[in-house]
């Protein structure tokens, strides 16, 4: 990737510190560039553009959102070019060889729960997109920074003093945003996939008792399909992959408010 924007440089230095650099001469999958759209836009209401090669899939954003744009852009790149996987809008974590997929609408608390689990020693597989391999049904990691929004940022700060955050960016399309650095161990294990154990739909509800309720396999399959970015591309292969995933895993919905309580319960 290429950028001279301080927001991007800082974000990468803080949050991708544990990722190895590609040695020279190695095959690079994607060349990504973040830059100002024009000289004018460097000074007057400065903006940032995301480019894959020479294509710019998005409209420019205010410069403060540069690092968030890098993350969103990278999501787009993966979702459009990795069709060996059913790519589900979900967080995924693993402990003891058992992977959980946590799909959820924005604001459902999936990233909060994911960050909390990771702070308590679970391995981060991915935050925004669960990658279910069409070949072997395993969940493949892309342990990139976890994106937290609004109140979640402080909740996790209080939850773990070790969590490292990048800049907090106010007023994006998704509200205030900050990214949390993935644990070193998760980054180092980025090439080891994990077997799916459960699909859990989290819902944060203030003051609620923790509830862990079984959901039918059919309903779970439909919800995964709705949340699968590349479902239209995969067609029958995607359906079969998700159906197999659901078939071999526990399907639950999870209502929670207390992170410690929910983690204890999940670890049981």
């Amino acid at each position: 990737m290429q950028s001279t924007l301080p927001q991007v440089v800082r974000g990468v230095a803080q949050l991708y510190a544990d990722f190895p650099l590609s040695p020279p001469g190695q095959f690079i999958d994607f060349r990504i560039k973040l830059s100002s759209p024009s000289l004018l836009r460097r000074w007057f209401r400065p903006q940032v553009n995301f480019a894959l090669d020479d294509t710019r899939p998005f409209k420019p954003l205010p410069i403060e959102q540069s690092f968030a744009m890098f993350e969103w852009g990278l999501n787009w790149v993966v979702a459009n070019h990795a069709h060996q996987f059913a790519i589900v809008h979900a967080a995924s974590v693993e402990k003891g060889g058992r992977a959980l997929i946590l799909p959820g609408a924005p604001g459902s608390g999936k990233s909060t729960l994911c960050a909390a689990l990771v702070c308590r020693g679970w391995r981060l597989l991915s935050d925004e997109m669960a990658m279910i391999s069409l070949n072997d049904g395993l969940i493949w990691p892309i342990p990139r920074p976890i994106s937290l929004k609004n109140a979640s940022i402080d909740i996790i700060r209080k939850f773990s003093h070790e969590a490292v955050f990048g800049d907090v960016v106010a007023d994006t399309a998704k509200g205030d945003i900050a990214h949390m650095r993935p644990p070193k161990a998760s980054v180092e294990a980025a090439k080891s996939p994990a077997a799916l154990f459960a699909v859990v739909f989290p819902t944060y509800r203030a003051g609620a008792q923790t509830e862990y309720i079984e959901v039918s396999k059919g309903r779970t399959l439909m919800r995964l399909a709705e949340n699968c970015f590349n479902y239209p591309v995969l067609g029958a292969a995607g359906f079969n992959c998700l159906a197999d995933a659901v078939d071999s895993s526990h399907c639950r919905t999870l209502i929670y408010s207390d992170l410690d309580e929910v983690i204890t319960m999940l670890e049981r």
Partner: protein
Amino acid sequence: MSLAACEQHPLIRYLRDPKCGATLDATDWERLLRAARHGYLSSRVAWLAKKSGLIEHLPEKIRFHLESALRVAQSQAVSVDWEVAKIQEALAESAMPFVLLKGAAYIKGQFEAAHGRLLSDVDIMVPKERLLEAEKALCSHGWFPTKLNAYDQRYYREWMHELPPLQHLGRGTTLDVHHTILPPTALLKPDVNKLWADVHAVENAKNVFVLSPVDMVLHSATHLFHDGELEHGLRDLVDIDALLGQFSGESRFFETVIDRADELDLGRPLHYALKYCRAFLRTPIPDDILSRSAELGSQSIMIRAVMDVVVLESIASILADRPSIKSQLSQFAMYVRSHYLRMPMHQLLPHLLRKQFASDPDR
């Protein structure tokens, strides 16, 4: 970038001879795949690797991209099937025949050019006198004109050879409905009735047709050099190369194309297509055919030289690791040129000025 430099590019070498993929190193493959993505050719590249058996022998990181691109092409073929079935349904009530053009035609007609062919919309042609009837039928089945202002509506309907692009409300797919292959305002005036007289029926699809092989080549050439801005230039050359590769085995195919180009007043685009297919892709085209096409599409030396530069630059811009000012200029020249070929100067100038300066609320 010169022609010689283009010829050294791994994508061009690979398109000429996919077997050379086995000798490319990581950097070459990176440039190849990047250019292929840029030129809407990634799935074609992947299919060529599969067809030649090369894909099995490539490093995993490269195979990854190719397999992903193959899935994209597969899904497009399925969705073209579905779109065509839906269009058929919409037009069946008035028993209206329609001709599939370009990508959809290659796929439904099962031509070699279909493999790995990416498309962003389906193009069809309906009889001119039934254009509005077709629009009404399609509207009642969920296709609506994309949001356009009154000026753009008029631009399409009055001057161009198509309705404004239609978009399906439910599926979001785009459909271009044409009634001929060049705008009525254009300099070249192919007789559309002659195209209709030769159409071939698509198997198991009532009222669905494709152009005859000869006309398909001519239409591809026309589209490439008179309709677009050459942004898909290399992809369109690959289409033509694949069509020629498939049909040239038929006896006297090239002679038939030349005669037909003469009859339809399409000598010039045919000549360009043959010339640049041979230059960039080494398509086997007999010398006498090339020179006969040059006579048909007679051009001054100056225009020929300009055309060489423009085509070279637009293909170079797909291959280049970064865009150059020169290629941006020639893209613009091509844009102006494609409009000039579509409409006379007294219509063109006000149109371009308006497009350049009129405020567009969506911009």
